[in-house]
């Protein structure tokens, strides 16, 4: 490979999610000191000129690199974990790392009732507290009631639904949303919280459909701008669409580390659940297959591992 090609390849090996271990070994491994110096001088992104005349690694980029090298390890550990421990740790991180309260919604609403119960049990073991006490204590805003209710739910999982009640709850939501008139305070409406936090998913799907019939709009679209309520309805009624959106946003260039972690989280937690549907939805929404997108943005072992997980359900 010509030197300039190699420089390009090396930069690519360091860019995106995960690192291209093979490229790093084959290129960097054989470079003499002068070649490495050329690299350092030529890569203003990673190296800065120190006042004492040497090229220094930029601290920020070292931290970035650390994340990228560890991305594969993190995915493996998360994948191997018992789903209860995994979800308990995700819930804890959602509260403290960031925080990312939307991940609380994601975990609470997209797991089966018994899986969420398992996560709550694991939370006791891991953290000597209940998840609801941590959520209630750690969140002060108007979303507290909704989030505590979501992590405490144990939704009925059968198919039996009550059409009459679903219709009236759809009507109620429609007038509540009109009444809120974009004031973004639907979270404080106890009945709204009651409906989304306690009703079963089949029931809510019925409510979602009735809402469309009554108003001509989709419930989650009408909840645009309503903190957490939009995500809640999406996770409960159209999870694959929700996950596709989050995945796509996380794979854009120049997003922060927390957003990038969503890729591992979603692929690991959905691989055994609804990966096939997720892929279909992603393709439908963004016109590119999920495996192709991952090939584009990810590198090395991390990329290969993700692709293996994503291939499930094929």
């Amino acid at each position, binding site marked *: 490979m010509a030197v300039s090609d190699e420089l390009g390849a090396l930069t690519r090996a360091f860019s995106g999610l995960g690192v291209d271990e093979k490229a790093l070994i084959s290129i960097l491994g054989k470079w003499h000191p002068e070649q490495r110096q050329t690299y350092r001088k030529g890569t203003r992104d990673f190296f800065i000129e120190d006042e004492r005349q040497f090229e220094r690694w930029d601290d920020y980029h070292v931290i970035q690199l650390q994340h990228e090298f560890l991305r594969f390890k993190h995915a493996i550990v998360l994948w191997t974990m018992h789903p209860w421990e995994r979800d308990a740790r995700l819930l804890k991180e959602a509260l403290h790392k960031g925080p990312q309260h939307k991940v609380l919604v994601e975990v609470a609403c997209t797991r089966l009732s018994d899986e969420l119960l398992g996560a709550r049990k694991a939370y006791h073991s891991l953290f000597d507290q*209940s998840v609801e*006490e941590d959520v209630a204590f750690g969140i002060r805003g108007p979303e507290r009631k909704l989030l*505590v209710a979501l992590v405490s739910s*144990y*939704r009925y*999982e059968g198919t039996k639904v009550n059409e009459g009640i679903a219709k009236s709850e759809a009507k109620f939501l429609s007038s509540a949303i009109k009444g809120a008139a974009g004031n973004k305070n639907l979270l404080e409406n*106890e009945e709204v919280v*009651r409906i989304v936090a306690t009703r079963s998913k089949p029931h809510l799907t019925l409510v979602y459909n009735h809402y469309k019939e009554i108003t001509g709009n989709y419930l989650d679209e009408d909840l645009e701008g309503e903190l957490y309520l939009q995500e809640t309805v999406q996770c409960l009624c159209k999870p694959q669409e929700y996950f596709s959106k989050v995945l796509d946003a996380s794979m854009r260039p120049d997003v922060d580390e927390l957003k990038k972690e969503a890729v591992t989280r979603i692929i690991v937690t959905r691989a055994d659940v609804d990966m096939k549907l997720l892929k279909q939805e992603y393709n439908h929404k963004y016109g590119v297959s999920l495996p192709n997108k991952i090939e584009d943005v990810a590198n090395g072992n991390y990329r290969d591992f993700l692709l293996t997980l994503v291939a499930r359900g094929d």
Partner: protein
Amino acid sequence: MENNEALIIQILAHRNAAQLKLIRETYAATYGEDLLKDLDSELWSDFQRALLLWTLDPTERDAYLVNEANKQLTSSNWVIMEIACTRSSNDLFLVRKEYHARYKRSLEEDVAYHTTGDYRKQLLVPLVSAFRYEGDEVNMMLAKSEAKILHEKICDKAYNHEEVIRILTTRSKAQINATLNQYNSQFGNAINKDLKSDPKDDYLSLLRATIKCLTRPEKYFEKTLRLAINKLGKDEWALTRVVVTQAEVNMQCIKEEYHKRNSVPLERAIAGDTSGDYENLLLALIGHEDA
């Protein structure tokens, strides 16, 4: 099959939950019907209600009681609170699971739907949804600060403030105990004394009862029994419910508490207040450990 009530009492009252389950299954296999269906067919007397409840296993029983409470009005809140607060985290969860199977809805959706008025829903729904940590670990700093928060809200008469609800509906029982001890030592009064400002206020009574159930359930049950026996409470099925639900659980403790408080053994009080088969069944149940 004719209801030979004395025989039924003898059989059913002296069996534990596992044996009762076996009896029901054997009955069904022999007669092709649910034992309970037989009992159902007559009008329910106190006796029959007690028998029916006793025959259910504890999880089914609690699910049944909550569902029944949802359909009623006022005093039923107490039943929901009582079950939510005095069962262990795991047992409460089993009740929620049983509720799915029996009623094809979640327990919390029914409680949320049927409770109207701020105070009940705010307190009851989180109480039934809780999965409290069950360990003994206590965070003393947290206990101190949460005691302060409780005191502040009580002084402001903000009895259904978010923070009050949060503390009582999410903290572990051990933590709540520690917090209330701190309350007492920091502010000189037990919290329930400070919550007595308006004796007619239903919400405050419920709140005090919640606290009692979480920290001293045997005292709560003693009081409930005392009011029921003296016909002072509004809860007409309290006697049946407490005796049946606590018979295999906490009855010894409750009997001691009752005797201490009332200077008369519980057996005597019940015998004085009830009669016939109902009396015999209740006495058999509270003497259960001795049988």
